[in-house]
């Protein structure tokens, strides 16, 4: 027996939620109240989930153990294309049930996943930190070497320009130090990494200006 249009729609609902929409599904979605209700429930869960779950995406292992536990307890069937589809006794999600399903997901995820999750967070943090430090170390070395050569030469010039350059070099060094601390504390944070690289860029530009100033005798 072939799949019904609703079953086909459910099988592709994951893609639908990612805005990858088959033209036939769009027609079916417009015509079928059951499938519209399903998508409405999934939207509701998706909107609520970021508020309740930790910010880091749970790993595949967490989801697998959650699924295995739900299967073991008979709450879902082992086979089937999408585990949450099997939660539907009649193929229809009711909005009132969505909260209950969401609660179940959260409790199960916390119960079975948290221990692994905190270890994984530490591993992820270390991996990001390694990566950030690998990127930072050569830049720091090059900038320090350039600074050691250029700054003493620039110090011999007595001008507004030299004073401004030295004052701003101190500002950038302070900024680098604060940003490095932030990156070490939270290496996954894209904004702090961006600030750090901007500060390195500013220091490189400043040293180049100092070199040019020294060469031109200003």
């Amino acid at each position, binding site marked *: 027996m072939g799949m019904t249009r609703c079953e086909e729609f459910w099988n592709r609902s994951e893609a639908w939620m990612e805005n990858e929409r088959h033209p036939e599904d769009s027609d079916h979605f417009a015509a079928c109240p059951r499938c519209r209700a399903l998508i409405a429930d999934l939207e509701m869960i998706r909107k609520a989930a970021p508020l309740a779950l930790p910010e880091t995406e749970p790993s595949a292992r967490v989801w697998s153990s959650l699924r295995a536990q739900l299967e073991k307890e008979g709450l879902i069937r082992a086979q089937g294309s999408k585990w949450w589809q099997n939660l539907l006794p009649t193929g229809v999600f009711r909005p009132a049930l969505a909260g209950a399903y969401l609660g179940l997901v959260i409790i199960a995820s916390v119960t079975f996943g948290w221990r692994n999750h905190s270890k994984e967070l530490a591993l992820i943090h270390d991996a990001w930190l390694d990566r950030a430090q690998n990127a930072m170390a050569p830049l720091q070395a090059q900038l320090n070497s350039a600074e050691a050569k250029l700054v003493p030469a620039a110090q011999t010039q007595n*001008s507004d*320009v030299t004073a*401004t*350059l030295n004052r*701003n070099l101190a500002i950038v060094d302070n900024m680098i130090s604060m940003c490095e601390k932030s990156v070490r504390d939270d290496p996954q944070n894209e904004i702090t990494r961006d*600030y750090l690289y901007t500060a390195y860029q500013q220091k490189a530009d400043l040293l180049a200006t100092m070199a040019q*100033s020294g060469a031109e005798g200003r």
Partner: protein
Amino acid sequence: MMMRQTTGRTLSALMMGWRAAGNMAVILLFGAASPVYAHHLQKQFDVQSHPLITFHNPSGKVTILSWNKPQVLVVADHDSPKIEVDAEQMGNRIDVLTHQLADQINPDELRANYTITVPEDAELQIHNDSGEVTVTKILGDTSVETVAAGVDAQDMGGYFVVQTVGGSFECARCSGRIEVHSISGNLQLVDDHSSSIFAQTSTGDILLDGDFLPNGVYRLKNYSGAIDVKFSHRDSFDVSATSLYGKVDNQAKLTPPSHFSTRPPKYARSLFGSFNQGRAKLELTSFNGTISIHKRD
């Protein structure tokens, strides 16, 4: 007699008064109003459309203006014999340069002041380390680099790129694309009508008080200074504002966004949303400064 004496005194007093007034006028005209410099240069060049003017000066006040003639006029003054000012034409390019003639020179002796008048469609490349730079009504692409000099621009129409180390920047009534980078300079963008502004300073403050054009993109970023954005009730923009360790103070009534492009860390102060239809895009980022989005008075 009395009368004559009185008249004589009066005439004498009047004559002395006129003489004093004349002397004052001479002083004002040739003394106080325009200081006399030991060295003066004035050169004029005929150019074609979109001429390029390059300018390199270590220290001094440079004023660049536009006119409707296809000519470039360079007027330069300086006191010290240890420097030389020069302007040369190479095809449709004019190079204006201050040379240092002596090895030992103090900062005051480096100073040369310029007034350069160019066609409106000229393209400019200006390098002036300290002093002041004033640029008015240039419609071609313009780049300005300074170390300590402040940059004051008005009515700029082309792509305008400014880089200072400690100099401040002010752009009023500018309509072209604006990109400004500084480390400690304050940046002010006032009454601009630009569709693209990127302003970045580390410890300086940033003020944006201009129009938000539909599809315009306005990105302001600093490290520790204040970012101050003014808006009116008619403006329409999407805003994302994040201060990692500082504050965000908002007076705009925002509609929450449907999607987050970047999720800031939990400890950051941030806000996202649309004001009216969200036609322009406003991105404000600070490390530990205060971001204010306030109604225009």
